[in-house]
């Protein structure tokens, strides 16, 4: 029947380059030649540029905006202000969190560098001149920087536009600067457990405001075709379909007349999920001028105005028995969301999935309260390389369990073993409402401890301590919750958080796969082809993966929160299985047997008991267009929309070893070992790369990243001069390892992984730093652990004497 070559099963499998193969990346060919196609590389005929006049003040009334001089600048074509956008209803925009955000400042500014006017001109230089020439007159107002003072009776009222509202999209609020109150768990039972506990601990644990700062800033090219009424926007979008729907809701344009394209995206890390004023202004300017308009952020704009992350001020408590077995957890969080509530979480979750705060531990009861407040800072609250608020939660529990160990004098590895959810407890219902799908925490930690010779390290630490040297060992055994998410409890502007995959198989045995997600460096063009290759038996090299164009890709919610593999990856497998089911019918027809007489083998259907009679997938592809069973529709294509039944729960065990110079406070990361369990591994090379990158970002966060404001709300250092991005020199060497505990509900058993290293990495670093001082009674040290801060601790303790 077919060209069955004399290849062994293993050779045939290897030829596919499917699941498990460390396949080289398909996208690299263009990037290494400088032929990537990022948004700033896009040039359309007649294209002009736009940029913002930004506020010098954090809180001020706008008395007047004088655009006359700017309009006289050669090359400047227009200056757009809120007044110009108002008739179009575009001066404010709805946020993904149910609030509204100013597109251009309307009567007042709420944070420094807020967008006040949009200057459009022939080229970047003319626009820059124009921006300088706009004269804005302000009346300064009292500034609110400290979120702890936001709800004071005499606090300045920031959002006069919603002052009278008792709800700004996420439930009742109790003060004009209050955004939401959210709580979960059993307060009464938690209080009782604390009252009865043999041991309790309480720590104030802050997570400073930081910023995802991908190498490429945000930007877009908007082009309104007045002839057919179609608006095309090329931009740095992690979620192009959501952007299309949001643009439709904001502008009133029919969704079929909007085309959103995410070209190559230079990293996202949560920064490129939301909708920014630049997108709206570029679109409005294109409508006004009839020309394509490009807007590209500067780095300073990016760091000081587009979505920040964290800014969680947490108080955590644990109750435990004498042995250190946790009996209850309590957390109280103040969340600084800045000037507008533009955090990007599934809408029913104003604090994201912070209630994963029980971590990898079997905690009988708990209670969590989170309050969000406005301040005169840039809006945001996105997940910087983590699932929604999971990194804050993981940081809190991993810090608390270390503090508990120190308080009762139990080893920090041992206390984790005493509290782990045991493998036989899965699926595990946590006291705060999650159903963990699978895990084997003790095995992971045992493997990690052996790999680093934990006992040897502890011995060495003791010896060093005796000599006055500072060495710390940090452990983090984290659990993430990724793959948002089941539509029954996850939506964005009402859209269920499913994802999608369309597969079209071509007659000669190749295929195109389109998804609702959007890679920003994760390697989707490589890895999604591997899933399809294994499922339908065509080589991954013959499978093109395409994402990011809303005119061609099926609707999906995009890439963030490690959701691509858990959700779109599942859609990929299910769609491929639909293809295979049809292929089986065609194979039965070709081989003149019943469908039930066939079995699948790598790349073909064989007749059971007659292995030499087979139809390869390649044969079937052609037959799908030429030789079909009676009554069957031609073609071999399908679409799957996958609504996950549950999240996936990747986990890991990390060990970090640091040496600290007791005279300078400098920290040297001697060793970092990361064991990750993300279930079935699709491409080990890509996974390892994701882990390296996530760890480097965790290192940055723990050791130096913080967006600081002075008392007037001035951003102190929103450039790479001040904002810490580690170089090759500071960045530690990473050791990676893994265990495999497949997800029972995911079609191929895979979980997300891109964010695990950030979630587990940050507490591992802090735990190591604090551990170096544990012998001196130090329970917690606030991030970031700069040499100056660490030196202050050393000096207070007199360890440099």
């Amino acid at each position, binding site marked *: 029947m077919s060209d069955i070559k004399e290849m062994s099963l293993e050779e045939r499998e290897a030829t596919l380059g499917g699941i498990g193969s460390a396949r080289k990346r398909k996208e690299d060919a263009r990037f290494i030649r400088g032929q990537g196609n990022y948004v*700033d590389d896009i040039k359309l005929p007649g294209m002009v540029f736009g940029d913002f006049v930004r506020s010098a003040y954090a809180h001020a009334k706008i008395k007047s905006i004088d655009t006359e001089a700017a309009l006289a600048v050669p090359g400047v074509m227009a200056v757009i202000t809120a007044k110009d956008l108002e008739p179009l209803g575009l001066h404010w925009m709805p946020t993904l969190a149910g609030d509204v955000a100013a597109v251009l400042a309307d009567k007042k500014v709420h944070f420094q560098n807020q967008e006040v006017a949009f200057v459009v001109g022939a080229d970047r230089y003319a626009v820059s001149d124009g921006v300088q020439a706009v004269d804005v007159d302000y009346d300064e107002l009292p500034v609110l920087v400290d979120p702890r003072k936001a709800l004071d009776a005499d606090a300045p009222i920031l959002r006069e536009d919603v002052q009278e509202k008792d709800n700004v999209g996420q439930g009742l609020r109790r003060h004009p600067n209050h955004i939401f109150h959210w709580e979960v768990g059993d307060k009464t039972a938690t209080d009782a457990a604390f009252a009865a506990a043999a041991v309790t601990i309480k720590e104030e644990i802050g997570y400073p405001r930081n910023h995802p*700062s991908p*190498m*490429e800033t945000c930007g877009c090219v908007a082009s309104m075709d007045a002839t057919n009424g179609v608006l095309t926007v090329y931009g740095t979008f992690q979620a192009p379909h959501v952007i299309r729907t949001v643009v439709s809701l904001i502008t009133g344009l029919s969704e079929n007349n909007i085309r959103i394209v995410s070209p190559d995206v230079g990293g996202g890390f949560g920064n490129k999920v939301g909708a920014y004023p630049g997108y709206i202004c570029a679109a409005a300017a294109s409508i006004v001028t009839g020309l394509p308009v490009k807007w590209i952020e500067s*780095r300073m704009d990016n760091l000081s105005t587009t979505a920040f992350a964290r800014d969680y001020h947490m108080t955590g408590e644990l109750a435990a028995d004498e042995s250190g077995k946790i009996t209850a957890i309590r957390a109280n969080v103040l969340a600084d969301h800045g000037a507008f509530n533009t955090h990007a979480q599934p809408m029913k979750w104003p604090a994201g999935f912070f209630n994963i705060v029980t971590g990898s531990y079997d905690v009988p009861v708990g209670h969590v309260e989170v309050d969000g407040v406005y301040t005169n800072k840039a809006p945001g609250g996105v997940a910087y390389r983590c699932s929604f608020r999971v990194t804050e939660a993981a940081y809190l529990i991993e810090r608390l369990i270390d503090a508990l160990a120190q308080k009762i004098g139990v080893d920090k590895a041992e206390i984790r073993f005493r509290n782990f959810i045991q493998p036989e407890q899965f699926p595990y219902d946590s006291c705060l409402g999650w159903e963990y799908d699978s895990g084997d925490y003790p095995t992971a930690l045992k493997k990690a401890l052996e790999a680093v010779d934990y006992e040897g390290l502890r011995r060495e630490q003791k010896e060093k301590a005796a000599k006055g040297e500072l060495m710390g060992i940090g452990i983090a055994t984290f659990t993430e919750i990724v793959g948002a998410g089941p539509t029954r409890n996850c939506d964005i502007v009402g859209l269920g958080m499913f994802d999608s995959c369309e597969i079209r198989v071509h007659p000669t045995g190749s295929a195109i796969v389109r998804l609702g997600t959007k890679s920003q460096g994760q390697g989707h063009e490589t890895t999604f082809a591997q899933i399809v290759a294994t499922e339908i038996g065509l080589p991954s090299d013959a499978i093109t993966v395409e994402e990011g164009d809303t005119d061609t890709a099926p609707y999906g919610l995009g890439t963030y929160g490690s959701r691509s593999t858990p959700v779109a990856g599942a859609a990929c497998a299910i769609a491929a299985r639909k293809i295979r089911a049809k292929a089986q019918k065609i194979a039965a027809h070709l081989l003149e047997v019943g469908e039930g007489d066939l079995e699948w083998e790598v790349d073909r259907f064989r007749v059971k008991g007659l292995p030499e009679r087979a139809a390869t997938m390649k044969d079937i592809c052609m037959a799908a267009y030429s030789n079909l069973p009676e009554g069957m529709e031609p073609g071999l294509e399908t679409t799957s929309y996958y609504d996950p039944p549950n999240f996936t729960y990747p986990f890991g065990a990390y060990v970090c070893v640091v040496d600290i110079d007791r005279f300078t406070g400098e920290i040297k990361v001697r060793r970092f070992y990361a064991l990750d369990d993300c279930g079935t591994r699709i491409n080990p090379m890509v996974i390892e790369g994701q882990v*390296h990158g996530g760890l480097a970002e965790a290192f940055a966060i723990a050791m130096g990243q913080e967006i600081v404001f002075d008392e007037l709300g001035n951003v102190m250092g929103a450039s790479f*001069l001040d904002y810490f991005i580690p170089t090759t020199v500071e*960045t530690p060497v990473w050791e990676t390892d893994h265990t495999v505990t497949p997800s029972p509900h995911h079609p191929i058993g895979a979980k997300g992984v891109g964010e695990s290293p950030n979630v587990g990495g940050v507490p591992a670093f802090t735990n190591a730093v604090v551990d170096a001082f544990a012998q001196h009674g130090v329970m917690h040290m606030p991030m970031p652990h700069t040499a100056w801060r660490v030196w202050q601790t050393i000096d207070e303790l007199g360890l440099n004497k």
Partner: protein
Amino acid sequence: MAEKTKISLTVNGNAVEAEIEPRTLLIHFLREHLNLTGAHIGCETSHCGACTVDLDGRSVKSCTVFAVQANGGELLTVEGMAAGGELHPLQQAFVDQHGLQCGYCTPGMLVRAYRLLQETPNPTDDEIRWGLSGNLCRCTGYQNIVKAVRQAADELGQKEAAE
């Protein structure tokens, strides 16, 4: 708009002449005037190195160099690295070692690594790390970039030994 200045230089082996505003930055000249979009803008303050190109045998950050400063110079960008269509060993090594993810820093990394291997043909890992410390990457954690440069250095070293 200021009066324009004439410049002439060699870019990836091709003679180029242009009239530009004197304040035009080299990165804008490359990207906007010559359509060489391989080098990227990442920070405008010469910290990130995404805009790195090679000017007269030195790595420069083209976001803080005026195009007029390149007048009469010889420029190499990532687009010029694959001589005769054949990948430079560094380019192949970045693929082999998974030394890139989003690809945005890659052109600058490659051009900088190219110069580093001219300056230090057989670098230690430490020398590679110091040599690339002016180029930031947020995706890879650098480890595979270091491995890629090591691979290319070894390959170039073997080539030289064979010649």
